[in-house]
């Protein structure tokens, strides 16, 4: 099986680098997980703040790498034309990878203050804010890569077929670039600093990224189920409409306690209480499409990731988000392990799993086969369950830690100090760490599945069905 459009091949290095950075993210996650209970682990060589920065920044970069790979893969197919400038996509891959590697090396090899000095942070201070720790020059690099990427994707869409999937993806990507610009705004006034910081952070993950997620999920579902595009696109519009209708004002749940007016407690509570709706619809949508499939695609693993993504995004972003979003609850839970619990499952469910879904679907095709062999897929599905179940446990242990923390430190009659409480909830940190080790095992199985030799499946040997976009046709309603 060959690619429909040769330029789709530029996606391959993006996917491989994404998985490589994913490994780094998990290794550093284990380091900080251990530092929670063995406080002097790797101290002072790799202090907690440095390892955490590597953990969160590699996450962001690998998700972006995955989004870019996904766009380069699916846009030519949607637009029915080759990529506008394949060489630009390859060049930008190397620029992005080298910038990311240098930044991570900078974090690890010199003290952060030295890195700030070396990269001229005094001239244009943007560093030292959560998730936006990258040197200013790296941020400028990200903007350049994003602009070249959007230009390439945009021109491809313009010259080809314009589908709802590509349009929604493009709107999401433009939003991603635009809202990143707020990372350059760093006023001395702490309230304003925090207020606008959320325009990058919240409007990314609870705003425009949901458009990207929706578009990629819609693409994968069209491919693996063969359901009529019209139906998928209608769902997609409704889901992303609900995402932005609830999520824009939903930003208010970050404005309760940072100095903004009290009315945000009403706006934020009401609208963010509605934020689970688009995620619930996404789960209903995914199962609906698979139940109404018009063909059985041989890539079972990709279908599993797509369904898993919709369910876990609903649980992590929807349910665990709702758990602490109402302002009277958030008053007690703000900035505790409850937030960490939500963050872990939401990022894994929504953004890690959508990336693994598109990689699972596209990589076999990029490697010249419609789907991996039976053995490779079984191993990949093992990795799905290992990672997903261990992430559920990580979330449950952090939630337990968070409930105890809130009670002991903030709610009981005799509130105790932060570090005293941390010692008392140590058991849950240990259990979280061991769940993290199992997660790493799942990731190893995942990578291993790429190297399992592919014997031909029955479906691959059968002639490809007339349904068009791959897979053997089955009778409707199966």
């Amino acid at each position, binding site marked *: 099986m060959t690619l429909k459009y040769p330029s789709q091949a530029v996606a391959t290095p993006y996917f491989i680098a994404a998985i490589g950075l994913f490994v780094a993210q998990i290794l550093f996650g284990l380091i900080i997980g251990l530092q*929670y209970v063995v406080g002097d682990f790797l101290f002072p060589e790799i202090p907690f703040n440095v390892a955490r920065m590597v953990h969160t920044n590699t996450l962001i970069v690998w998700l972006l790498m995955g989004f870019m790979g996904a766009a380069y893969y699916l846009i030519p197919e949607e637009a029915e034309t080759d990529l506008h400038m394949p060489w630009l996509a390859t060049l930008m891959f190397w620029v992005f990878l080298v910038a990311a590697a240098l930044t991570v090396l900078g974090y690890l090899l010199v003290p952060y203050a030295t890195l700030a000095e070396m990269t001229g942070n005094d001239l244009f201070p943007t560093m*030292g804010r959560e998730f936006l720790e990258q040197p200013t020059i790296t941020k400028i690099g990200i903007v350049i890569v994003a602009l070249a990427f959007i230009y390439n994707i945009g021109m491809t869409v313009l010259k080809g077929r314009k589908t709802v999937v590509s349009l929604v993806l493009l709107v999401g990507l433009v939003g991603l670039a635009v809202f990143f610009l707020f990372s350059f705004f760093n006023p001395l006034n702490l309230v304003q600093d925090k207020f606008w910081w959320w325009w990058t952070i919240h409007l990314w993950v609870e705003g425009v990224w949901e458009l990207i997620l929706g578009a990629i999920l819609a693409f994968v579902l069209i491919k693996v189920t063969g359901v009529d595009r019209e139906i998928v696109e209608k*769902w997609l519009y409704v889901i992303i409409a609900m995402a932005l209708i609830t999520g824009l004002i939903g930003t208010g749940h970050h404005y309760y306690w*940072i100095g903004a007016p009290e009315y945000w407690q009403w706006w934020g509570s009401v609208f963010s209480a509605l934020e689970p709706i688009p995620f619930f619809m996404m789960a209903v949508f995914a199962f609906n499409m698979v139940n109404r499939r018009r063909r059985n695609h041989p890539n079972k693993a990709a279908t599993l990731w797509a369904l898993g993504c919709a369910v876990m995004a609903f649980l992590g972003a929807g349910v665990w988000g709702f758990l602490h979003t109402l302002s009277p609850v958030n008053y007690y839970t703000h900035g505790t392990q409850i937030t960490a619990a939500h963050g872990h499952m939401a990022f894994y469910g929504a953004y890690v799993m959508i990336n693994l879904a598109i990689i699972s679907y596209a990589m076999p095709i990029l490697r010249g086969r419609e789907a991996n062999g039976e053995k490779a897929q079984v191993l990949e599905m093992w990795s799905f369950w290992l990672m997903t179940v261990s992430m559920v446990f990580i979330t449950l242990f952090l939630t337990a830690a968070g409930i105890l923390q809130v009670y002991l430190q903030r709610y009981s009659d005799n509130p105790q100090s932060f570090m005293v409480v941390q010692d008392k909830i140590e058991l849950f940190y240990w259990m979280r760490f061991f769940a993290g080790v199992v997660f790493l095992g799942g990731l190893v199985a995942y990578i291993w599945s790429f190297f399992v030799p592919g014997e031909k499946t029955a479906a691959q040997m059968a002639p490809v069905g007339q349904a068009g976009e791959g897979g053997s046709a089955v009778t409707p309603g199966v």
Partner: protein
Amino acid sequence: MAQAFTKEMARNIFYGGTVFFFLLFLALTFDTHLALPDRDRRELLDPETDLGQQIALGKKVWEDNNCVGCHSLLGEGAYFAPELGNVYTRYNNSTDGIIGFIKSRPKDGIPGRRSMPQFNLSDEELEGVAQFLKYASQIDAAGWPPNIEG
């Protein structure tokens, strides 16, 4: 979904809803910025004053050392080390207490336990970061945190 509900209607809800709620969000943002002068203690930040310069240096020290990588400030940041939005009040309204703590961190940590790194800050930087944290404690954060422990 029923046939009566078309893709075009879904599309219009998306565009209409997004534009409407984004404009509403902008309006609330504008109103917030009108209300902030009474809440955010911006009068302390006047660059013409010693205090304003100290706080500016303090915020730079805060950022250049990635303090938010372990601590939270008004509940935002990492959850590895104590909340600092009210550390000034927790230390009995004393900047000296804050300075003394930062200065006394052992270079090689504490065996088996979490310990803040020794950042080797100058006296000026120490005073700045303490004044920055004092300023943070004076922001009207709607009664948060719930108690002195942060």
